[in-house]
């Protein structure tokens, strides 16, 4: 049960967003730009960064929700998503994405943990300044989303079979207000 009375039974952040639409709108807009922009990093790469940071923050709802989205974009490769969560250095992903995940993992600890050599390594592996910018902001944004969800004890479905339907809804229609203002998809 959430720490506050949200007056709805939507899962995770959706319940909090429905409780306070005035803040939900910019939060959804931020997610839309950061996670669905197709320039530079792919949607799959963006969701993998979000999944890794959410896993490090131990936010069950977020790392499963965004892991499911990454999985959709990666043609259902659930094992790969799980390896990025736990051991990305040995995952079958590009060196560029590995270097960006290193930066994201540092941001999760603290902004100051990011070192010039982390940036140099990402650049060496082909990351552009915009890729690095987006990686830092995705990681920082999930330090917000994860704390919002767990800090208010948002309703977290423990049945993983409920996650794909919501992920498909986002993949098809984006992070608009429909995620917290319309009937929730069940399958």
């Amino acid at each position, binding site marked *: 049960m959430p*720490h*506050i*009375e949200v007056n709805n039974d939507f899962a995770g952040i959706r319940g*909090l967003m429905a*409780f*306070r639409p*005035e*803040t939900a*709108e*910019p*939060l959804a*807009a*931020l997610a839309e*730009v*950061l996670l669905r*922009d197709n320039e530079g990093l792919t949607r799959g790469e963006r969701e993998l960064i979000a999944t890794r940071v959410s896993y490090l*923050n*131990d*936010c069950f709802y977020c790392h499963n929700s965004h892991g499911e989205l990454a999985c959709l974009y990666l043609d259902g490769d659930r094992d790969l998503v799980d390896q990025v969560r736990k051991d990305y250095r040995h995952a079958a992903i590009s060196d560029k994405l590995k270097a960006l995940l290193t*930066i994201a993992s*540092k*941001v999760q600890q*603290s*902004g*100051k943990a*990011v070192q*010039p050599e982390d*940036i140099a390594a990402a650049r060496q592996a082909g990351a552009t*300044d*915009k890729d*690095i*910018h*987006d990686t*830092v*902001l995705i*990681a*920082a*944004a999930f*330090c*917000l*989303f*994860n*704390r*919002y*969800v*767990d*800090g*208010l*004890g948002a309703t977290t479905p423990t049945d993983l079979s409920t996650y794909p339907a919501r992920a498909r809804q986002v993949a098809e229609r984006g992070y608009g207000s429909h995620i917290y203002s319309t009937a929730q998809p069940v399958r």
Partner: protein
Amino acid sequence: MAHIDLGNDLPGIRGPMAYRPETAKPLNELAEALLRDDNNTLSRGERELIGTYVSSLNDCFFCQNVHGSLAQHYLECDMSYIDAIKANPAATVLSDKLKALLSIAASVQKGGRSVTTGQIEKARTLGATDREIHDTVLIAAAFCMYNRYVDGLATWAPQDRQFYVDRAPRRAAEGYLDYDLHK
């Protein structure tokens, strides 16, 4: 020097905001809704104080000075009072309710799971509403983002604290929406 070429020499968060306006827009809209919108039972000063306290816990020089100066402006106090709150809110003359909310904010800074039902109950007993608790958690969470954005890209920050105090009245008057990042 910032980790990436921002194409401008603006201080703090304004550098990456000018670099990437597509993300700057929702970041500023969130700040406006959380910190400045007057449809809120927490005052602007109280909300800026929560942002300041979390930024101080995250050791983000730029953010704690921008928002500390705004808190000081709204609360009509001096910076030494803001500094005392950052050092130990419990030892100040703040209301018990605000102290309880700051304690929740400090837990959020560590991690969402650090917030206990005991902390929530205490805040409620002292008069905090669900919406005030919601906004406290989201302000604290949001500064865990803003602080990491500013320091994760190694943006530069003016070291003279008076710079921030001098700018506060302008930000208070203009708000976080549609202001000129270059002024």
